[in-house]
């Protein structure tokens, strides 16, 4: 392994480039950041860690002037600053490279790097000097591509590197990389890291955000952990084990978690061993590594993992929302060609998206219309459902799931998150699926509705439905599931039986850590 990456940050005698003190950012009703301190030293790679909603992007946006903090000061080189926006921050030497490449795909590599700062001759852009300067910058980064080629011809990874070349072309003191690796494969990540090290050794302060723990440990010197908008701590990467990091991010002491009990009556029940869904070697390049998965009748299979570990991607593959490029899925022993969600629905697979509003309910339609949608689709458009049948059905499900208000004509967009979730669930249950995939069904809903939904899941399983349950809350997964599939870095790393505890899952997620720590010790 690379030794230089593990070097302790050379801290002595260095003043922080960026110093943020007591930063708070508030939106109506939401405290996105509360009194967060943050510092960035020259010549270090500093990872900003935290689960979804912890406040990482808010902090970055507060630093680059997209948001104005409601409290706190930001110092750049010891002087207090307040930027009007990313362009202003960039003029002061803070460049940001975003997850999506923000360049112009229709222009050449050289133009993308130098646009707005091109060398000119007699008032015209000097194309030759432009390409020469770009080639120089690219060569500095060890990247040998034709600067005259059009950006769109290059893979995303190279485009990402070109974006970085543009960022450093302004003599950036601070380089912010927001999830730059999420669309890169391993070799491409290695290339990116090589360039990050070159820049770091040149004294650039790099702020790195990534959901991939291994990458963070490979490249970063120091990390700041946020949780729920608050600073949890700043640590040297070398001093913080992966296990400690995960518990800092999730916010529980491991010991306390060990006491978590399962729902009474659940632990005793054995699920059947009749497989409903069997997936063998199903995967998609750049999404999820090929995995095997069997789901039995009456079984709840939990999918656990950090954000970005491939939980949702796996579910989308099983539902045909993304097309698998390898492997096979069988339902009740019959091979299924997963071309589209339509095919999956026809085979009895239902999927409740984590993005309720975007991919789930239709906000502008009534509860009745939303409930009927899936059934109508299953029934075929040519066969209308009689109004009376509709009304009976809708009434039954509103009662069964305790949807409030119990008014079939209420617009779904006006319901609370929990009730929207129930509508979505009811919509699928009407079609009597064999396999029900629930992606974060309890996110952002109040505790009462949460318990209702969890109870419902347990009941559905008892009635024989196979359920795939995805949640970021490990307790929930451990409590409900007969089996837990653990995901990490976009592949399935383990399968635990129903006695799995949150501790077990967290250890698995932080697994490599213990091994490498043992090696180090």
């Amino acid at each position, binding site marked *: 392994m690379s030794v230089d990456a593990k070097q302790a940050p050379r801290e002595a005698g260095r003043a922080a480039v960026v110093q943020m003190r007591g930063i708070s950012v508030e939106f109506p009703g939401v405290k996105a950041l509360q009194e967060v301190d943050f510092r960035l030293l020259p010549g270090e790679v500093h990872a900003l860690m935290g689960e979804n909603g912890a406040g990482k992007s808010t902090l970055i946006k507060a630093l680059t002037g997209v948001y104005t903090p409601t409290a706190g000061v930001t110092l750049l080189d010891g002087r207090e600053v307040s930027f009007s926006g*990313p*362009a202003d921050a*960039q*003029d002061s030497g803070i460049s940001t490279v*975003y997850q999506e490449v*923000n*360049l*112009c*795909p*229709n*222009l050449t590599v050289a*133009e993308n790097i130098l*646009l*707005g700062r*091109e060398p*000119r001759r007699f*008032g*015209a*852009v000097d*194309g030759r000097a432009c390409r020469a300067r770009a080639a120089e910058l690219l060569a500095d980064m060890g990247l040998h591509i*034709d600067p005259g*080629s*059009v950006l*769109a*011809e290059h*893979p995303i990874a190279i485009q990402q590197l070109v974006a970085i070349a*543009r960022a450093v072309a302004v003599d950036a003191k601070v380089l912010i990389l927001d999830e730059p690796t999420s669309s890169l494969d391993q070799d491409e990540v290695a290339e990116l890291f090589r360039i990050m090290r070159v820049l770091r050794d040149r004294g650039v302060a790099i702020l790195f955000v990534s959901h991939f723990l291994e990458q963070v440990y490979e490249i970063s010197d120091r990390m700041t952990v946020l949780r729920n908008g608050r600073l949890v701590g700043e640590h040297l990467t070398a001093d913080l084990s992966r296990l400690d990091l995960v518990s800092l991010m999730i916010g529980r002491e491991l010991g306390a978690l060990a006491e978590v009990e399962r729902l009474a009556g659940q632990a005793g029940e054995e699920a059947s061993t009749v497989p409903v869904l069997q997936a063998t070697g199903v995967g998609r390049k750049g999404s999820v590594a090929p995995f095997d998965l069997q789901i039995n009748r009456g079984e709840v299979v939990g999918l656990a993992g950090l954000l970005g570990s491939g939980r949702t991607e796996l579910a989308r593959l099983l539902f045909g929302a993304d097309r698998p490029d390898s492997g096979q899925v069988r339902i009740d022993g019959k091979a299924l060609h997963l071309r589209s969600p339509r095919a999956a629905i026809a085979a009895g697979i239902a999927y409740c998206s984590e993005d309720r509003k975007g991919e789930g309910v239709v906000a502008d339609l009534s509860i009745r219309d939303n409930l009927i949608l899936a059934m109508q689709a299953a029934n075929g458009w040519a066969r209308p459902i009689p109004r009376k049948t509709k009304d009976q059905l809708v009434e039954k499900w509103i009662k069964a799931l305790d949807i409030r208000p119990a008014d079939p004509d209420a617009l779904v967009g006006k319901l609370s998150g929990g009730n929207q979730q129930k509508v979505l669930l009811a919509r699928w249950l009407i079609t009597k699926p064999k396999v029900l995939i629930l992606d974060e069904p309890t996110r952002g809903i109040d505790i009462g509705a949460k318990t209702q939904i969890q109870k419902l899941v347990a009941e559905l399983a008892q009635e024989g439905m196979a359920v795939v349950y995805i949640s970021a809350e490990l307790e929930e997964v451990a409590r409900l599931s007969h089996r837990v599939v653990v995901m990490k870095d976009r592949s399935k790393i383990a399968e635990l039986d129903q006695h799995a505890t949150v501790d077990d899952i967290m250890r698995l997620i932080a697994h490599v850590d213990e091994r490498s720590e043992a090696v180090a010790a």
Partner: protein
Amino acid sequence: MTTSATPVKGKAPLGAILRGRSVPGRVVPVIATFVLFVLLFGVGAARYEGFTSGQVVANLFIDNAFLIVIAVGMTFVIVTGGIDLSVGAVVALSTMVAAASLRAGLPAPLVVLLVLLMGSTLGLLMGLVIHYFEIQPFIVTLAGMFLARGLCFVVGVESISIKDPTFRSFATAAIPLSQNVSITWSVVIALALVAVAVWVLHRTRFGRTAYAVGGSESSATLMGLPVAKVKIGVYVISGLCSAIAGLLFSLYMLSGYGLHAVGMELDAIASVVIGGTLLSGGVGYVLGSLLGVLVLGVIQTLISFQGTLSSWWTKIAIGTLLLLFIVMQRVFMRRQP
């Protein structure tokens, strides 16, 4: 299966040439337009006597000088991903204002200045609305089109003929290129404008930023480019070009009339698209638009040489070509990674 063991030099398949680095993909539609022009011209030369005479070619430019000028302005707008539907109406308004103010006795240079100022102001206003109110260019320039067309009839409902001696002598002056071939000043002005436009769009920061805006406006903003200036600027340029075209048109017709240049905006858009500029923005060449106009012109000439066909067949031919080119572009873009 290879039948010949020795590679034939200089006879690489056309596809390989087109895909090679030496010819970037985006130039292919322009080359296709050029090939089409040569083919159409070849058909004319083969079928009709006198088609190849220099004056036929010169007339191609003389009869389309104003369209060339509008197409140049339109290219700027379309490269940024916009559209300008007002150009035909602004041409008509320009002829009307020029004719009316000449009749009122204003000196010719002042009239020219007045018309140019009016055209660019209209463009500026539309650009401001498009950028700052974030309204689709289609709607804003449609409104501009109705406004300009209506204003024509406020100036006068009848056709006004131009009797000003300066205008008349300028219009009728022929610049001999050889013994039998001569062109008008309109052609000189149009071609000079093309040259300036090539320089501005392809070689200046303004031009390159226009391409960036067309490629991705949000990226261009994040890259810190002067998006507002360029987005508004292209409509000013298009307005100015329309005014110049209006002056050339009034030289061509020697009259001002509210029903001049009806539908000319569509001819201009067709020329630009046939010339290889993507309607979605970000890709295109000024010279391509010039070729587009010439293709339209040569079809018109072919039909007039043919003699028995109604001139409306030109429209059918243009429609077919337009569809063909758009489909070709789509197929081509799909093939790119």
